[in-house]
């Protein structure tokens, strides 16, 4: 055999692609490390700039991060990790496969069975299951992928080993007395490597895509990450407004996969060729093209007839397109069997499966099937509703006089007795109700209900408007409170499909006149994007609580209307004052407060739906806002945050960019529920800003809200993000008693200040409204000084509806949505 050959075509191709691949890998490894830009640097003033803007060749994402830099940085995670994983499974899988194949017998039986068991799962399903169970994180992702892909190599190595075991050289080596290890390494391994390396090269692309898929589902590396799948998942909601955020990582994925696939293919071509060169001598060439003349002729023929192929493909595509067009036009959802109906979507519906007005109280009125004795006007003043009047007899006694002639939807009359039964049930079941009104006894006489309290309840009149305590519903035999509660409202519950849809129909017995709509459907969406698209397509009529992206999409656009009210809802950070050493340090708290970009959050992250909040209560209440208060933190400033820490002696001693507190790096953990994308974005932004001030922020995303102190504390968090309606009925006592008072039910962070407790006692006994406001302001000032809560953004309650929908309301209390006059054109 000749020992020197001229390079074949395959070898030339291979050199080119190998060089490209190598360069690519080097770039992926080095560029993210040496580039002088920080991919996680957020700048909310530069949000969503299109590609081509000065300084941002690929534009910016929602938080103002440079898309090009993020994509480049992501190469490290998307590509290198994939390479590492493939290398690991190659080695491990081959080892296992070779051992099984060589030893045969019980060893092989075990190996084979294990491999078969793993291969019984579709690969991505298994990866998702493993990563889903283990949770987020790079290690978990690597484990998941490794467990799925090792079998490919094990199987291949095993079958190759079994064949090679019988080969002449192995037998000769065995006769020479070679140990199994020697045979495996010297004789079998070199001969299986080629095939295995090819398989490995070809798997890299698949692994990259699997990783992207896992990250897309939220199972990849923890935030902050620039992994391409995670980037695409983030960019999903902004698909319409900023498509480049999704295109860039998508293209990057595509390029990587193509490069590695090409590498693998060409490698295989080259090695196949080398192996078959001696054996075949060209049976691959079509017979007619063996002669030069024949080759030319067949190529011409091929070209001509190739046209047929092109035509065929075009025809097929046209047929498909025709199919598509034929199915065009999404059907509008069919209305209720004749009659008008309204569909409202939200991502915040149906967290629970129960409609019991005593427990799931906040939605009973907004869904339109329950009402309260008094309702709140738009100025947050109580007005008669089901009751004629509410009277204060003495400090501990109040009477409610119900209107005559009101019936529940089942026809039963609303009497004092009925109200008494309903209230007794609510107070028995609902702890919060009890906390807010300490009822001693309830008496009924005709239409008058007398309530005696153990403690003075100066806020009684506003409490009577609160569904938490005073939803009026029918209590009787055989009532299914969970699925079909009976109230007095304009609509009656027809059907609740768990996790999805609540349908209500018109209450034919409505006491207050005719109800305009025949049917109302509340539909829960898991996905903001899907919901926005549904509204766009006319499949739903309105969205309650749109996301920032949805707001940007519909606000002010033709065909849509925005209905909103200012509320006392404020998004705030809750700090751990009990078990967190870092948070107990006042300088750290102030520094964190300086790092919250309240304007940026309100204008950019929530798309303008919210207002920056610097005080405690929002401007929506008289005792809220910032006027007259002494603010330590009155602006967003990373420099000031850094300054505060410096002044407190919290400095960076080891030059790693993170300050040390008591000898340990200043690390803060923030937790929130991933249901609110705006909170997730805030975490990302805070992470970047706090890093600039020398603090490390770890983001912990949960899929549920932390709803009690023990769970909150157990999560090990220093900060959580929450959003509360602080004064639904306009009264300050509710929130103070809920969160500020020591050991109160929602005071998860363990904040405690005896001054506040004392003031709260005063509040509980103060009947004069102005004086109540003053006490509220005093408490607010203490809160601002203590900085155990950071109230950073005030929300409006917003509904976006298509034109033609009338009578849909929002309210500062968030209690009311559908009314008897709600109608669709």
């Amino acid at each position: 055999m000749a020992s020197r050959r001229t390079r074949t075509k395959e070898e030339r191709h291979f050199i080119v692609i190998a060089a490209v691949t190598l360069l690519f890998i080097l770039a992926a490894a080095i560029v993210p490390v040496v580039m002088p830009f920080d991919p996680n640097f957020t700048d909310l003033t530069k949000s969503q700039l299109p590609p081509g803007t000065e300084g941002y060749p690929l534009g910016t994402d929602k938080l103002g991060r440079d898309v090009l830099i993020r994509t480049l940085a992501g190469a490290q995670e998307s590509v290198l990790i994939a390479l590492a994983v493939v290398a690991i499974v190659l080695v491990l899988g081959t080892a296992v496969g070779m051992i099984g194949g060589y030893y045969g017998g019980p060893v092989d039986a075990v190996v084979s069975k294990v491999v078969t068991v793993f291969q019984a799962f579709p690969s991505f399903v298994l990866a998702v299951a493993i990563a889903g169970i283990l949770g987020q994180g790079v290690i978990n992702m690597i484990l998941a992928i490794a467990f799925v892909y090792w079998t490919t190599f094990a199987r291949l190595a095993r079958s190759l080993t079994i064949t090679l075991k019988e080969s002449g050289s192995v037998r000769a080596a065995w006769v020479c007395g070679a140990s199994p290890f020697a045979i495996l390494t010297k004789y079998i391994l070199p001969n299986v490597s080629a095939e295995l390396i090819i398989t490995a090269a070809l798997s890299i692309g698949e692994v990259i895509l699997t990783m992207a898929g896992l990250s897309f589902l939220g199972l990849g590396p923890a935030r902050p990450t620039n992994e391409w799948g995670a980037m695409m998942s983030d960019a999903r909601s902004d698909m319409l407004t900023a498509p480049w955020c999704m295109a860039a990582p998508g293209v990057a994925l595509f390029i990587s996969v193509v490069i590695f696939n090409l590498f693998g293919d060409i490698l295989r071509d080259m090695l196949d060729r080398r192996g078959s060169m001696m054996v075949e001598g060209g049976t691959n060439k079509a017979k007619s093209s063996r002669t030069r003349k024949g080759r030319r002729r067949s190529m011409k023929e091929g070209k001509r007839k190739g046209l047929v192929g092109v035509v065929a493909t075009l025809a097929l595509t046209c047929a498909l397109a025709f199919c598509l067009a034929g199915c065009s036009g999404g059907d509008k959802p069919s209305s209720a069997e004749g009659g008008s109906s309204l569909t409202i979507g939200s991502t915040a519906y149906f967290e629970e499966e129960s409609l019991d007005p005593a427990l799931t109280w906040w939605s009973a009125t907004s869904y339109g099937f329950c009402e309260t004795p008094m309702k709140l006007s738009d100025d947050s003043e109580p007005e008669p509703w089901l009751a004629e009047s509410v009277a204060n007899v003495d400090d501990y006694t109040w009477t409610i006089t119900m209107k005559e002639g009101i019936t529940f939807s089942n026809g039963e009359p609303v009497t004092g007795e009925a109200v008494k039964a309903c209230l007794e049930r609510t107070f028995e079941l609902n702890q919060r109700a009890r906390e807010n009104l300490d009822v001693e006894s309830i008496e009924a006489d005709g239409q008058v209900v007398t309530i005696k309290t153990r403690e003075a309840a100066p806020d009684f009149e506003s409490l009577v408007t609160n569904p938490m305590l005073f939803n009026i519903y029918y209590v009787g035999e055989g009532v299914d409170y969970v699925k079909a509660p009976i109230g007095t409202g304009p609509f009656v519950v027809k059907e609740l499909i768990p996790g999805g849809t609540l349908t209500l129909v018109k209450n034919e017995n409505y006491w207050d006149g005719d109800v305009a709509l025949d049917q109302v459907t509340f539909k829960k969406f898991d996905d903001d994007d899907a919901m926005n698209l549904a509204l766009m397509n006319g499949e739903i009529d309105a969205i309650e609580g749109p996301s920032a992206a949805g707001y940007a999409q519909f606000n002010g656009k033709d065909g849509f209307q925005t209905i909103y009210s200012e509320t006392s809802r404020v998004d705030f950070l809750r700090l751990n004052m009990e078990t967190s050493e870092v948070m107990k340090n006042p300088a750290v708290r102030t520094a964190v407060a300086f790092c919250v970009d309240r304007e940026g959050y309100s204008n950019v992250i929530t798309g303008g739906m919210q207002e920056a909040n610097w005080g405690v209560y929002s401007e929506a209440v008289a005792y809220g806002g910032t006027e007259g208060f002494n603010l330590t933190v009155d602006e967003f400033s990373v420099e000031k945050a850094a300054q505060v820490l410096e002044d407190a002696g919290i400095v960076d001693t080891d030059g790693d960019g993170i300050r040390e507190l008591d000898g340990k790096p200043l690390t803060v953990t923030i937790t929130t529920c991933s249901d609110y994308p705006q909170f997730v974005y805030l975490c990302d932004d805070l992470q970047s800003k706090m890093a600039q001030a020398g603090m490390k922020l770890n983001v912990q995303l949960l899929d549920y809200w932390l709803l009690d102190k023990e769970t909150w504390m157990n999560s090990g968090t220093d900060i959580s993000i929450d959003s509360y309606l602080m004064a639904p009925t306009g009264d300050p006592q509710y929130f103070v008693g809920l969160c500020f008072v020591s050991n109160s039910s929602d005071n998860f962070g363990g904040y405690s200040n005896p001054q506040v407790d004392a003031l709260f006692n005063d509040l509980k006994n103060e009947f004069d409204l102005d004086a109540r406001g003053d006490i509220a302001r005093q408490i607010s000032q203490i809160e601002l000084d203590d900085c155990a809560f950071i109230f950073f953004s005030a929300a409006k309650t917003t509904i976006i509806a298509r034109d033609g929908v009338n009578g849909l309301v929002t309210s500062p209390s968030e209690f009311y949505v559908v009314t008897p006059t709600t109608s669709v054109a």
Partner: protein
Amino acid sequence: MLLELTDINKTFDSGEVQVKAVQHLNLSIGEFESVGLIGESGSGKTTVANMVIGLERPTSGSICYKGAEIALPQDVELSKAQLKERQARAAEFRRDVQMVFQHPAETFSERMTLGAGIEEGVIYRKQMTADERRKLMYEALEMVRLPASYAKKYAWEVSGGECQRAAFARAIISRPKLLLCDEPTSALDVTVQAQIIELLIQLSHELRMSCLFISHDLALVRGLCSRVYVMKDGVVVEQGETKQLFEHPQDPYTVELLSSVLDFRKKTER
């Protein structure tokens, strides 16, 4: 007696089909003796060789090396101690036996030089430095009449005969007491065959090895072996001193076998 096979049976059982490859075989090889085993393809000769070398286990029967039992027949339950003892003796036996196969190029790894391949013959058997090993390797090359430069060549670079010589080098480098040759010349050209046989005769004399020579080529066996066994369909039909057997065959099969060759010879001799 160096090696003694007594009542060896080998049955291949693949569930549906049973093949009785070897039945009631008795065979012995003495020290410094060359023994031939002849028969047509499928007669079970290679199976016998495999059982001797340990690549196969006999279904039943005994194999004794220097008087000690080394076989692990499939039909016998051995106690742990017995098993260990036999395995130890079998290991000792394997150190003293080597084998040469029919297709020499296949028995060398494509990636190893002939020199490395030859060294494989001794690398697992004795502890020595790389230099000592290399010296032995060159000695072995010399013994098989191959130039030293062949140490750097690959199996696919040399001719069939040269490759078989290298195989012999690998076989004798560890100075085995018994050499098994399974059709060592069948894949080679006729002219080369004679050279190999001559080499084998020389080696067995120089190195004082016993030899079990398996072939379907009677003329070769006649030239090399002092005793011959004739196998047909797994059974030994005749055995004896070579000269005696070839000149006065008893079994009708042996007669048939010999006469076909002789006839051919007669025809070509004209």
